[in-house]
Structure formats: C-alpha cells, structure tokens
C-alpha cells in the first residue's frame, strides 16, 4: 500500500502479517476467550505507539484496575507509569455506561483527555458488554456509535471483546465484526494435551494480509511475539532462489565420498542421509561441518536428538575438536528438545539463526524426530520441510538432513512415510550389510540431481579417532569387496558367480 498512512503496531511479527501496519484510524476488533492475550495485545499496541513511534495513547479499562495494568506491563519491561508522568499516556478507569454516553457527546471528556495529549491510539478493554452480549440490532448500533466517536478523533483503536466460543474452533461471528475495519482473533488451541496460542487476521479493510492461523507467544520481559505460520508464502524470491550456482560444490568431508558424488554437494542443494540408528549419519554430519570449518566456512548443526555436550563428546571421539571451532565462530551447534515443538516458532528460530550466523553448511539431525513430533500424516511436516528447503536454497546453503530409516537390514523405501523425496536433491542410503558373521556398512547414492550416479553400493567404515571413510574398490585388506556381491541393499546379499548369479552369503566361500 504505497503512500498510505499505516500505523505500525510494533508488536513483534504482527506487522509482517500485514503490509507493515494497519491503516490509520482503523477500528481493530481483537476477539478471544479469557486468557487469550487480548489485554496484553491492546496494552502493547498503545505502549509501542508511545515509546517507539511517538504516538501518545489512551487505555480505557472497565474491570482491571490501572495499577494492575501497570504492574503486569512492568513484567514485560513496559514502564507505563513513566509514560503517564511524561504526559504521553493516560489510563482511564470508567464504566461501560459512562463510555457509551461519553462517545455520543460531542464534548466527550474522554476524547477531550485524548486530545490534550495528542493521542493517536486508544485501547478499550472489554467492549463486549458495552455493546450488549445479545446479537441484537441495538448492540450493533451501540458499537457503531462507539466506532464513530473514535473515528471522529482519528484514533486508531483496538477494542478487545471476549468471545469464549473461539476456543472451540467455532466459526460464530460477532455482530461487531462487520462494523470493525480489522478483526483479529486470538485462540488457545489444544494440541495433544498441550496448549498453543494462535492469531488470525480475519479481515483488514483496505489492505492485503497473511491469512490463516499463526502462532504467537506472550514472552516475559518482551511482550507478544507473532510467528508467521510456516506454510504461509514468504518472499517470492525464496522459491526462485534455486537459481543456484551450477558449478560450485562443497566437500562432504568424508574421504572417498566426494569422488563418488562428482566432487561434493552443489551449493544450495538438499541432501538426505537415510539409515538406521547407529549407521553413522551423525558422524557424516559432524565431518561435513568440520570440513567447512577447516576451509573457513561457517557451519550450523541443529539437533533434536542429542544435546550439545553429547554432540561435542561424539565429535571428540572421531578427532573433531568442536569447541575450538565454536570459539572461532566457525561452527554453531544448537539443540532444541523435540517435545511440544511449535512449528512456527521453531522455524522462526531457524530462520533468524540462519540470517544472523550466515552458515554455508547446515546439518539437521534428524528429520525423523521432526516427524515424530509433528506427525507425518498431515501437511504440517511436509510444509515445514518445504519451507526449510526453500530457506536453505534462498541462502545458498548446502543442507544435509539425517533421516532415520527403521529398517536394519535392507531398505524397502528410501524415506518411509516421509513422502517428500521429490523435494530432496540428493539421497544417500546408509545400510548394514550382513556378510558372514559381521555387519558391514554400505553406502548407496540413490539420487543425485544434476549428477550422473552409478548407484553402486560402496563399503564404508567408521574408525575411532578418525571418523568415516568410503573404502576403495577393490579393498586392500583380505576381504571380498562389495563388488563381488549382489543384492547388498536387499536383506540377503549373495556372492556373484562367474556368470553373474548369486551363490550365497558366506563371505569365505570362493
């Protein structure tokens, strides 16, 4: 909306759902059940206006005493008392009857008070009963009177109204909604015994906005933070960012692997390493970020499976000194517990981290834990992964995602229920191969976009103090190389006969 006079709410993340703000003098109806955060939102709207945009404001309350409003605001770091002393804020306690009469009068004392401090914003907490709870013509009319009074003074107003039905996903609309210019619904949604807060902009006259239910949190010491839902479209540039550099590759850090994948992973590519637990996926991830640090490139490892201390210990066991690289600011390791992940919040954290740290390499360990947390049945996981892939591509990051495939021997599918292999550029299958009395480790490049792939299963080994390497073919040691077997990724590999047919799994047989 170029050229229009937009009022920035100043509430973190909310203006991003709108084209930067709300048209001035809009009447904004904030609906929600008890405890949904209506008062906090209204008070923050006025506080941010006074403190950040030099727009004095008025808060009108009917039930909560102003000293409690001030006390609660102080918990968010908002010093309302100071703003009142400076004459930039007024908190007025009144009754609904008085307010209704006041706003009908041309010489309203309330509006006169607003004019004295040059108020541009007003928050009225609890207008529901002001206009009557029964959806009658009278209540509509009373609300109309209220909005007219506010618009006469060119005040941008937030009016909080209690709507208990919103906690039950009801589509019941209030009569005030048709009169208000902007309608925002706050909800508390049950999610598997947890509760999360959501915000939805239902309408906003004169502007486009991001529809749908977005997550928000009320954060001690800060206030409200809105997190755009992960499915919502980002900048158009993000999806177009796959216009990657078609030549530059980053080394995998696994000796022998780069040769198989034509020199490394393409910049901006998405790689999934799939295999059962213990097969070496995290080791590969650690070597990948250590290789980045060796080359002076920043790397980020996000773990949902292991805490940071454990990751440092694991790295040390394969000769990688992560603390040194962390101190040099070349590597960052982040852990987030997978319980009760709020996907919008989590994605926002990753987005902020990526933008701030600017890594060239990212390892995410693991997709299967996201699947357990978010569920693979609905769209949430897929949309989250899609957004993650788009973010990494936009930032031209080589991203490696570990994925736990539950099959110990052989693989019937690459990604199981995670139907998203089409979003992935490269898939590396890590598989145990039972030969004779030992499990040997096989690696198969199942997919590599824009690369010729031989799909040969290569043998790997993980050595204490050194990490993983892909063994050469043929093997230097006195063992039959994988090339002498058939069906390595099946559950029953067989030795090849001279005419190419299998003869049995016994490694010692000739």
């Amino acid at each position, binding site marked *: 909306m170029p050229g229009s006079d937009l009022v920035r709410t100043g509430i973190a993340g909310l203006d991003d759902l709108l084209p930067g703000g709300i048209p001035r003098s809009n009447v904004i109806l904030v609906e929600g059940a008890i405890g949904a955060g209506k008062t906090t939102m209204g008070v923050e709207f006025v506080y941010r206006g006074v403190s950040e945009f030099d727009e004095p404001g008025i808060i009108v309350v009917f039930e909560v005493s*102003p*000293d409690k409003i001030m006390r609660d605001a102080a918990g968010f770091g908002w*010093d309302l008392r*100071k703003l009142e002393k400076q004459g930039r804020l007024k908190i007025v*306690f009144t*009754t609904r009857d008085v307010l209704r009469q006041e706003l009908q009068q041309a010489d309203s004392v*309330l509006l006169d*008070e607003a004019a004295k401090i040059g108020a541009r914003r007003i928050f009225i907490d609890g207008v529901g009963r002001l206009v009557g709870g029964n959806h009658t013509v009278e209540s509509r009319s009373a609300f109309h009177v209220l909005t007219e009074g506010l618009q006469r003074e060119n005040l941008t107003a937030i009016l909080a109204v209690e709507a208990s039905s919103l906690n039950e996903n009801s589509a019941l609309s209030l009569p005030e909604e048709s009169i208000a210019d902007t309608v925002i619904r706050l909800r508390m949604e049950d999610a598997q015994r947890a509760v999360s807060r959501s915000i939805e902009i239902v309408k906003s006259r004169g502007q486009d906005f991001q529809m749908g239910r977005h997550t928000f949190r009320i954060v001690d010491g800060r206030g409200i933070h809105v997190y755009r839902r992960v499915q919502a479209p980002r900048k158009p540039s993000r999806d177009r960012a796959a216009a990657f550099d078609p030549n530059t590759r980053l080394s995998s850090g696994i000796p022998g692997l780069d040769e198989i994948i034509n020199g490394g992973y393409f910049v901006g590519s998405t790689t999934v390493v799939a295999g059962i637990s213990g097969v070496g996926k995290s080791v590969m991830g650690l070597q990948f970020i250590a290789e980045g640090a060796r080359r002076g490139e920043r790397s980020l490892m996000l773990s949902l499976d292991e805490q940071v201390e454990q990751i440092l210990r694991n790295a040390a066991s394969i000769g990688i000194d992560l603390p040194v690289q962390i101190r040099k600011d070349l590597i960052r390791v982040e852990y987030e517990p997978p319980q009760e992940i709020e996907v919008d919040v989590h994605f926002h954290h990753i987005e902020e981290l990526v933008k701030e740290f600017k890594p060239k390499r990212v390892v995410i360990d693991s997709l299967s834990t996201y699947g357990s947390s978010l569920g693979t049945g609905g769209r949430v996981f897929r949309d989250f992964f899609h957004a993650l892939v788009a973010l990494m591509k936009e930032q031209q990051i080589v991203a490696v995602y570990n994925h736990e495939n539950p099959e110990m021997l052989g693989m019937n599918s690459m990604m199981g229920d995670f139907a998203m292999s089409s979003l992935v550029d490269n898939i590396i299958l890590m598989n145990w191969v039972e030969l004779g009395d030992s499990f040997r480790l096989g690696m198969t490049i199942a997919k590599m976009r824009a690369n010729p792939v031989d799909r040969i299963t290569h043998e790997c080994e993980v050595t204490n103090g050194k990490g993983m390497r892909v063994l050469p073919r043929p093997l230097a040691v006195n063992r039959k190389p994988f090339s002498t077997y058939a069906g390595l990724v099946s559950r029953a590999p067989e030795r090849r006969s001279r005419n190419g047919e299998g003869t049995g799994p016994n490694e010692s047989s000739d």
Partner: protein
Amino acid sequence: MLTIHTIQCASTGVLCCLSPLDSPQSRTGQVTLIWAEIESFGMQIAAWGYNQEHLIFRVNWYIRPTAFQGSAKFDRGMMSDKPSSSRERIEEIKRLLTQISAIRGACELDLLVFLHRHPRVLLTSDQLAAFLGYDMKKIANAIEAFIDGGLLERTQNPAHAARLYVLVLDGPQGGELTGLLKLASTRQGRHDILELLGRGQSETAVDSVQENRRLHAIA
C-alpha cells in the same frame, strides 16, 4: 563488610538501600532492595549494572532516613529484616495524618486507596459511591475535602453526569500521600490508620459531648 548503595527518595524522604550479597564487581549476586519505591530507583539500579532479576523486595523493612547517608560500608550485622516497631509506625501514621488533613475517616482512606489504584477515573458520583460502598453524601464530602486539600482534580462539565477525577500525587503533599498509601497497603498498617482515625473521631466526639454539656451548663 558489605557495600551498601543508598539513595533518598525525593518525594518521600525515605532512604533506599541496595546491598549486593555477592561481589558487587561481578554483578552476579542478588541485591536486596530494602525500601521499595522501585520505580523511582529503576534508573539508578540500572546505572549500577543491576536489573530487576537481581532484586529482592522487602517492603516491610523500614529505615529511618537519618540512619544512613550516602554510599558507605556497613557490617552485615547492621542489616536486619525486622519490621519497625509498632510505636514507630504509629508515630509515623500520626505525623502523616496530621499533614494530610483531608483524611478524616475510613471513607476518605478508602477513597484515597481507590484513587491510588485508579488514578484517573471517569465515573458518576453514584458509581464512585457504589464502588467504595459508602453513601453518596459521605463520598461527596470526601471528594470535596480532597479537592480542597489539593489531592484531587475534577473536571467540571454540568452536561455530563460523569466526572473525570485525577489523583494528584505530585502535589505538595505527594510525599505524605505516598507514605500513607504505603502504610495502608499492609493489613496491620491499615488497621493502625483506621484505629488512629477512629480514636481521633471518638476524641472529637468526646470533646463535642463535653462542649455540649458546657454549653448546656452555661444555658
């Protein structure tokens, strides 16, 4: 030895002491704010490198303004969590009530407390009386006394049933008002204030009876 930062509240004359319980240099320890009025001292606290997480509030601990002056070092033994004696408190209440002549009874005290919690109210006098639970006449008298005493401002617009009442805390009696409100915020303090007000009223009543008898005798 314990370093104690002290500053004096401009309005109340009450002293604020901050005592870092840990090394003041490290700024990691907790700080005890012995006398409240945290809003007034917020800037100073921040200037010392503390934030609200470092603070423990002990509002019942009263220090005579003359006890400490400026920043100094004191033995931990000088610190005490004991509340001030009731005699001191009662003396203080007497002093404050003498200064704030508008507070003459429970109605005025309750009006003051209400207005402190709602410093800017837009209400009709009926509503104000209903909120406080007193009859209209008493409330009207209390309001007039407050306005006369410079404690309250009121809009005058006969066309409106409601008036805007604004408590004046930064007036000449602001310090005393704050002190009295602080005392009235505790159960014991309120009880002591009401008892003194009641005693004052009964003394006045006794005086009045004696005066009547004297007048009757003269007649």
